[in-house]
């Protein structure tokens, strides 16, 4: 874990809803794996007591990227960042995606949840690991990828303006139908809004497909100190310390959890 003032090297609008920022930090970049996040300060004169957690969406050399959506005062401040601005970041934090080489990976990202999914997608692509990517959004302008089923990229839109009309479950079913592997040989890696996470988790449990989901909760410290980011698990997670087996910490025990623990 490092705390660094990371220089903004670029900030661009990637879609109608999403901004992407490149941040210079040799230490954080080198230590980051797909699934990790950073906890950052939107500005130096930031008076609210909490940092803002953001997934790492890509790493190249000494630079890591985040992708964000504007939802409130913190992300509003982030939009005004300019190249050269220094951002106080703590990271990398949390656990990472695992076992993507033991199964056929089905990557599912919805909305800004595409951020940690994109990092895994790039990593798998670089490692020449065959996989499918299913990305969901409300409308075509929000997408970062091109619909290209032949190379395993499936887009869905709620309004049908591109890719498959409907939600990611429909994309997931089509992607699965196109590959020879059986359910036992598949694993879903998912990050999206709560309703999407639930739908994907329940689909996976029913279909007998392994599934890991990255969740979002309000966080204060991001480092396992405040115990504020608890999520209630549906099964006892015996791998965790006894007092966290029912209420696990999203920042330390997560943010990635097995679907059967969540739903």
């Amino acid at each position, binding site marked *: 874990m490092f705390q660094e003032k990371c220089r903004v090297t670029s900030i661009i609008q990637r879609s109608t809803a999403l901004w992407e920022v490149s941040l210079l930090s040799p230490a954080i970049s080198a230590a980051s794996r797909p699934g990790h996040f950073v906890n950052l300060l939107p500005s130096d004169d930031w008076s609210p007591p*909490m940092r803002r957690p953001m997934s790492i969406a890509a790493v190249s050399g000494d630079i890591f990227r985040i992708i964000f959506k504007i939802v409130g005062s913190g992300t509003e401040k982030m939009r005004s960042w300019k190249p050269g601005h220094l951002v106080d970041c703590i990271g990398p934090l949390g656990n990472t995606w695992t076992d993507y080489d033991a199964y056929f990976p089905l990557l599912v990202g919805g909305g800004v949840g595409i951020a940690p999914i994109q990092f895994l997608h790039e990593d798998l692509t670089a490692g020449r690991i065959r996989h499918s990517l299913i990305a969901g959004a409300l409308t075509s302008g929000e997408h970062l990828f091109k619909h290209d089923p032949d190379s395993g990229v499936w887009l869905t839109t709620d309004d049908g303006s591109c890719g498959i009309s409907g939600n990611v479950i429909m994309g997931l079913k089509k992607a699965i139908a196109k590959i020879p592997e059986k359910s036992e040989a598949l694993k879903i890696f998912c990050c999206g809004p709560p309703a999407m996470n639930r739908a994907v988790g329940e689909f996976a449990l029913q279909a007998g497909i392994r599934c890991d989901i990255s969740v979002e909760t309000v966080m204060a410290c991001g480092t396992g100190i405040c115990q504020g980011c608890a999520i209630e698990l549906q099964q006892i997670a015996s791998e965790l310390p006894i007092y966290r087996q029912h209420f696990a910490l999203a920042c330390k025990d997560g943010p990635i959890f097995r679907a059967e623990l969540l739903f």
Partner: protein
Amino acid sequence: MFHFSFKGLTFDSPLLAASGTFGYGDEVADLIDINQLGGIMTKSVTLHPREGNPPPRIAETPAGMLNSIGLANPGVDSFIREILPRLSALETAVFINIAGSTLQEYVEVLDKLEKTDAFYAGYEINISCPNVKRGGMAFGIDPRTTERLTRRLRERTDKCLVMKLSPNVTRIEDIAAAAEAGGADALSAINTVVGMGIDIEKRTPLLHTVTGGLSGAAIKPIALAQVYKISRSAKLPLIGLGGISNYKDVIEFILAGADLVQIGTLNFKQPAAAVRIREELEAWCLKNNIANLHDLKGEMVSSC
């Protein structure tokens, strides 16, 4: 820059880490040299492991935060096995914060700790947690129970005994006097202030427990007034906390009567806040020709 001793303990920084905001010291060891702190108050330890309250447990509020953690912790046995050996190796003063639902529970936790040969400065007794159904704050709102609990613990330890007081009382000076009568070595104040918030779209409370504890800059004026009130009546060393955000706040607390202070919620945003504030205090003392910041204790000039 700073020097203060009591009960055989010497402090060369007035800045301690507040309970529940610094874990057990190792979580952010990569980000701060812990031995630069004046001391650490551990997260509250209870007799049995506690899973805490259901989420949501925290919410941001203007200049502060609400929490209702519910004393989630691994329990004293696992604390002794897995955490205490590490804490015991630190140079900085470690105070083990104890919470309980009954008087007997506080006593049993303390007894178990006393039986170890670990090295630590003493205890901070949490009689002020607003987020548990039984015990916690119930001990800290009644002078008689405060005195009885303090006395029972005093009989069983020679280590430094700090009683942590709640602001959620009518007369905090009465609770302070009770802790003093029971034999405490020092007092710390304040714990969080009862508060709540509502999501108007969902019409649901921000916290699962509806009410919780408010901390952060928002409560500093409340904390300062409580510390001032205690210092006017109690003779014991006093550790002030509540909403400290910068070096000026620290000086205010000392002027109001605190001997030492604790940094709480600020640690979440800046894990190394205590180191930075210490440097700022040094610069301020140098500029103002102050050899020992502790000399300013209670030195507020009465009329404005």
